[in-house]
């Protein structure tokens, strides 16, 4: 396990997340809610985030399937690049929790702590190699409201060697984190693990 990076309010350490409103009480949850929790994976069992989203179980079920298809789908854009897009967007949106998880995944996959350290400290002004630069600029532009990605961003990605299928994979990851960041930022807040 590589060393963690902590800088400018962001960290790759494992954080906890606490909901601002009452999550579903598992003792009184419906069969459907318990089935969806089971499908959501082992980490969901003890997560307030998942327990909260169980208030709308059918939507949580679809969201998890979509999330997994986008972030873990085979071939196409390397997983590290998907995590980099998610991380850049999470930093710019100020989602400390999302950043901690996905910067950590990026570190594990890409083994490039200097990139994470630079992004934590300087955001988009970070010094990046051309391939990372193209991913970061496109992800940041698509993350804005309204989305501001343009032809120049696509051209830069193509020049860095990405196919349109790769770019579509990055689009899906950034779009998914527009979703994930909003849930994480507006329904609760990160906490240090005990």
């Amino acid at each position: 396990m590589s060393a963690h990076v902590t800088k400018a309010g962001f960290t790759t350490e494992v954080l906890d997340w606490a909901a601002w409103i009452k999550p579903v009480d598992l003792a009184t949850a419906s069969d459907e809610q318990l089935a969806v929790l089971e499908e959501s994976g082992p980490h969901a069992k003890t997560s307030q985030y998942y327990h909260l989203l169980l208030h709308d179980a059918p939507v949580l079920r679809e969201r998890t399937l979509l999330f997994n298809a986008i972030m873990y789908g085979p071939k196409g854009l390397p997983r590290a690049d998907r995590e980099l897009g998610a991380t850049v967007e999470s930093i710019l949106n100020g989602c400390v929790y999302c950043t901690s998880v996905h910067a950590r995944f990026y570190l594990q996959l890409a083994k490039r702590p200097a990139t994470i350290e630079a992004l934590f400290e300087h955001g988009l002004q970070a010094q990046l190699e051309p391939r990372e630069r193209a991913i970061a600029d496109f992800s940041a532009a698509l993350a804005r409201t309204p989305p501001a990605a343009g032809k120049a961003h696509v051209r830069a990605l193509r020049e860095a060697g990405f196919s349109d299928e790769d770019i579509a994979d990055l689009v899906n990851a950034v779009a998914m984190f527009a979703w994930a960041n909003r849930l994480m930022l507006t329904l609760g807040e990160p906490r240090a693990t005990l």
Partner: protein
Amino acid sequence: MTDVIDEALKIAPGSRLDLLRAARPEVRRRTQSSYDALFDPPEEESLALGERFVVALRVAESSGSPGLAAHYRARLESLPVGAGEASWVAILRHVDRVTREPRALSAADLHALAAAGLDEATIVTLSQIVSFVAYQVRVAAALALLGEDA
């Protein structure tokens, strides 16, 4: 099978964007099934369908997505007219903030929604709609961009 992204972007079968989306069948399928879970819910326990379309329309409009805004407007207008129950001022203010500046929200904002009469399940569904449309407008915007300069 209807696909809202294909419909909003007028993606023709066999076109370049159709093939690009076909490369990720599970993403395409789950994008639509997420939409279905939110906008054709098995049972309306929390937010009424009309309220869901108003919220989605608001997000699509403020995210600069005319194709998706037209879609949600058409679905809204297809519903029978009924009186809104919830506090629309409180809801739309919240929707706009989650859309534009999600980092600025705090526990007090959710407590304000609760004070306006929304229970936990309704707040979660509302948040999922806003966040899903934030996803959808980005997929649509980027596909339109990739379709422009083949």
